[in-house]
Every structure is written in C-alpha cells, then in structure tokens.
C-alpha cells in the first residue's frame, strides 16, 4: 500500500529537484506559487514522473465542472484521520500542477488530487488511483472547452475497466453515463440543481424524463441508478441506512453534496462517515471562496460562480433580501470570452436584493438585469459598490478572474 517502499529513481529525483528550483525562481520573481512552472520543468525531465510519484500513494482523483477544489479539500481533511495527505489544494489541476503538488509530499500516505475535467482520463491512466470521485458536468467556457456531452464521452472511454472505485453522482445523467463503463461504482445521490445540459439522453439522444428527483430516458433503458449513499437535507445516509449529520462551516446545498460524496470516498479508504464528517467541519474557506473579509469597514462574503450551474447553486445559499449583492463578471481567457452564458442564469432569483454590478463585463450584466426587470446600480469599483450598499453583510458573487481581482482589491 502506501509508504516509501521504493525510492525514486535518480532521474525522477533530479526532475523533482529541478522542478522545485524552477518553482522557487518563479516565486522569487513574484509570479505566483510557482507550482505549475515547477511541475512543467519536472515533467519535461521525466515524463513519467507523475506516475512514479503516485506509486507511493493511495490516490483519489476528484473531477467535475463545479465543486472539485472544495471536495478535494474535504476529502483531504477526512483522510488525514488515517494518515498524512498530499494534495493540490490550491486548484492547480492540470498534470504539471498535480506533479508539483505530489513532489512536495514525500512522506504522505494519501494523494488527494483535483483534476481538470479535460485531463481526467490521462491522469487516471498515469497514477492508477484507488478511487475517483465524479461530481457533475455542465456547460462551462464554451468558446474553448469541449462540448459537455463529449467530455462525458471522454470520461466514459478513459474510465472503461478502471480498477479504481468510482464514486459518482447518481443525480447527474452525464456523470452516470461517464461512470457506468466502470466495473466498480458507488452511486451517491448528491443532487444537482442545474438540469439544462442533460435533457437529451447521453446514450441514445432520446428526451429525458425527470419526474421529481428521478430521471430516465423515454426511449432507451438508461435511467438513474439506485444510490447507496444519499444526501438528505442536512444528513447523509450511508449504505447501511445510518444517517450522519453534516455540519459544515461552508455554506449551501452544493457543499453538503460535496461532503456526502467526500464521506463516500473516505469510506473507500476505511475512514468511517462520522470521523470523516467531523473532520470536514474544519474547512472554513477554500482558496478564498466563502471567505468573509472586511473591506472599508464592511463585511463581504466572497463567492465564486464560474458558470450557470455554479450561479444557480450560489443563489440558493446567499442570505435573503435585503442583503446587498455585488456581482462581478469578466470575460478574460480563463473565464471564457463569450458572455452569452449570463443568459442561462436566472437572475430573477435576486429580486428584492439591492444589486451592484462591477467587472470588465458589467454592461453585459446590466443588459441581462434590465431584461430580467431588476433594479441595479452599475459601479466603477468595488469601493463604490461598498459605499452605496445599504447596511449589513454583503454577498459578493464573481466569476473566475473577477474573483481573483476582488481578492487582490480586498487584500485577501
């Protein structure tokens, strides 16, 4: 199993050292944590390094459109109950970033690794994971990403016959389609609010029927599998029918879903749900997400929402009106440069909140909100929003680079 049974080859060691040196140079130059550049250098010197680093670890991979960073963090917290963990906790989730993270944890027993959706099949091949957690798939960055169903297809092909236990969301038809080529699947009824990427059957193209929480294809036999773990309000039911309370500092239904999945993953590694869930309470904020910060004498809660499904889950966790809400949207490379997705988000859910709008694409948002018949103010800066906002804690929802901008502004 785990441990340092087999030392790294000299070539692999050299690659790790060179990677660390490159990361240190990058950090010294003020260019971020350096984990990606370090990993790139190391992988150049030893292309098999990722697999070699992972042979010493019991690895779990986590992939999804939304929630992968948080779930990675929750699983890491849970597995620490039974041994040291190495993890790419900061969300550097492509092979270089993953390599760099693993290189930093030579005494770890477990590797808890977030993987970008597009790289899952390849990373799963390289590191022979013991478990793979699949949370959800939905539209994201359509100007550069693969089509959502094609992504599910790639997962399906890549995971065919995998030896890993796949822990998959039974409530997302695309995830079920992707996971059902795997011989050993643990289905978790984790829920999914967003349904608009799975109206046509991934197997045959038939129209999906969705009565209540169930779903099935009207034409072929593809249907929701019977889950062995179930998220039920504030509880998770384990396969023995015991209900365990989920207490998190992280807000919202989606994080309860992440915790339920994490408990199912922890069980694969022998950590009982009670222990796993208690440890998850420790997690406060994940890479700044959900953090409550103070800015110009006001409290702001920072919420990241990158795509329609993420915005939908975020709307369901914010405090009710008259809590002020600041929205910030950019459309830089990492966000996707097409803002059409704003129209897939149901902003009428914000009715009654005082709304303030910033970001590179504040005018796209303004038109979106105008058509939704909402009252809003377009501002030039976060400071202006905060000055105009009525009293009380402010909810701030931003997409990817807009979120980074806000963190810099508030010094988080």
């Amino acid at each position, binding site marked *: 199993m785990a441990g340092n049974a087999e030392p790294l080859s000299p070539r692999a060691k050299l690659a790790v050292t060179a990677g660390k040196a490159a990361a240190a140079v990058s950090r010294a130059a003020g260019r971020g944590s350096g984990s990606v550049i370090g990993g790139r250098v190391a992988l150049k010197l030893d292309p098999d390094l990722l697999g070699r680093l992972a042979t010493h670890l019991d690895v779990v991979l986590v992939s999804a459109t939304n929630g992968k960073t948080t779930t990675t963090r929750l699983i890491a917290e849970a597995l620490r109950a039974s041994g040291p963990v190495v993890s790419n906790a900061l969300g550097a989730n492509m092979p270089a970033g993953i390599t760099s993270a693993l290189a930093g944890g030579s005494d770890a027993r477990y590797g808890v690794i977030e993987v970008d959706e597009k790289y899952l099949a390849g990373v799963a091949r390289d590191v022979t994971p013991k478990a793979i957690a699949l949370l959800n798939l939905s539209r994201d960055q359509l100007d550069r990403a693969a089509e959502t169903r094609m992504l599910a297809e790639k997962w399906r092909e890549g995971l065919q016959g995998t030896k890993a236990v796949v822990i998959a969301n039974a409530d997302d038809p695309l995830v079920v389609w992707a996971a059902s080529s795997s011989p050993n699947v643990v289905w978790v009824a984790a829920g999914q609010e967003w349904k608009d990427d799975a109206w046509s059957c991934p197997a045959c193209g038939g129209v999906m029927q969705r009565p209540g929480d169930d779903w099935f294809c009207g034409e072929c036999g593809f249907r929701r599998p019977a889950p062995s773990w179930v998220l039920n309000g504030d509880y998770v039911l384990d396969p023995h029918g015991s209900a365990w309370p989920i207490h998190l500092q992280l807000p919202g239904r989606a994080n309860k879903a992440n915790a339920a999945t994490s408990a199912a993953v922890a069980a694969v590694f022998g950590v009982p749900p009670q222990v796993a869930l208690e440890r998850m309470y420790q997690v406060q904020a994940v890479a700044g997400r959900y953090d409550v910060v103070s800015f110009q004498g006001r409290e702001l809660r920072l919420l990241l929402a990158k795509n329609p499904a993420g915005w939908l889950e975020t709307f369901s966790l914010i405090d009710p009106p008259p809590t002020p809400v600041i929205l910030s949207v950019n459309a830089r490379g990492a966000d996707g440069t097409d803002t*059409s997705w704003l129209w897939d988000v149901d902003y009428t859910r914000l009715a009654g909140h005082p709304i303030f709008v910033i970001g590179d694409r504040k005018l796209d948002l303004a038109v979106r909100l105008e058509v939704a018949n909402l009252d809003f103010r377009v501002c030039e800066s976060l400071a202006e929003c905060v000055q105009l906002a009525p009293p009380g804690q402010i909810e701030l929802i931003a997409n990817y680079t807009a979120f980074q901008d806000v963190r810099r502004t508030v010094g988080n």
Partner: protein
Amino acid sequence: MSDNSLRLVWVYPDLLSTYGDQGNALVVERRARQRGLDVARLDVRSDQPVPSSGDIYLIGGGEDRPQRLAAERLRRDGGLQRAAANGAIIFSVCAGYQILGHEFINDLGEREPGLGLLDVVSTRGEGERCVGDVLGDIDERLGLPQLTGFENHQGVTHLGPTARPFARVRLGRGNGTGDGTEGAYNETVFGTYMHGPVLARNPQIADLLLKLALDVNALPPTDDRWYEALRAERIASATQPA
C-alpha cells in the same frame, strides 16, 4: 397576430440552447411587454409538437449531435414548416440557422437535410473554428444599426438566389465563405451565426421581428441606455483590440 397577445415560440430549448439562447426569447418578450403587448411564450421541447399558430419563432444554437436530433424531429413534426407557410416570423441562430437551410453536415460527417425554409446550404469549414467578437453592417434594406455579436462555429454557409445576406462583416468570419457575408434572410425567415445573445447585443433586431409580426412600421420607444452602452463598448472593443 391573434387578438392582443403575441405568441412567442422558443423551439427545442432541450436541444438548441447551449449559448445563452434563452436570452433572445427574454429580450423579445421584454421588449414586447414594454410596448404594452401581452406575450404568451411557449417553450417547445423536442418531444412535443411545434404549434403552427405562433407569431414569432426562435431557434437557437447547439452542439453537433443535438443539432442532428433537432433536424430529424423538426422534419418529422412539420409544425415549424406549417408556421412558415402561414407567414410566421422565424429567427434562427447558428445550429438553428443551418437547420432552416436545405442541408448541413451532421455530427456523423453526413449531409443532413434541413427544413428548406431559407435558401442556404451549410458545409463544415476546413480551417480553424470561428471564435470571437464580430462587427458588421446589416443589409441596408433593413434599416438597422451596426451588428455586434460573438461567433463560435465551424460552419460555412452558402446563400442561394432567394436568400439575401443579413449582414456584411467588418470583423469576424460570419458565413465563413470568405465573401464577408453574415447570416441570411428572406421575407419572414432570418438566420445568423451571432451569439451574444444577438438580440441582447442588437435590440433593434428584436424590434424588427416585432414590427414584422405586428405588421406595423414603428414601435413606441423604450429606454435602451444599457443596450446602447453595451453596444458602444463592444463596437469600440472590436475595432480597437486591447
């Protein structure tokens, strides 16, 4: 238009609503209501019949397989064709635009028959996918201001003699034929590659659809300052890339 209610039909959101296409329906609906019209919006899923009695039909963009499924189901259903024969206004985007033509290339690489409501034929381009902001001049007969939008497609659409180019691009690829044309239209049927969504970027096009459906020459004015601000920003950004 029947009585005082505008019937707005959004065709197959389960298959053809990948790029914020709901926005086009929301903009038409909002602008009609701002003019005091009652709007009955009907979202028709691909396992439901398309009514033939609508005033305006919107059909959006989608991925390759859903596009084929939509074409198969629309051909079989016949409702949209009957609506077109009744003189309904049809506005289509990207995959929907290709479906309204005579044929397009489907996800299996085969020629898929369309509905033949627009005199266009689409093939798949050999080069890179067309992705990015577009700026164009709409056919002067329509009397509309500059076109702004976002394109994201691999299609090449050739116009036949009874289709007119909807616009000519200044920036971007449009129909991908290299002649600068973008989209196509005839008396009642419109097609474009523009997302954005295009009616949010170009509310005057939404008003054109309303005027055609209502058979009027003018509509009461609306407060369009946010649309205008967005248009000015997108046009400036397209002409002076950062």
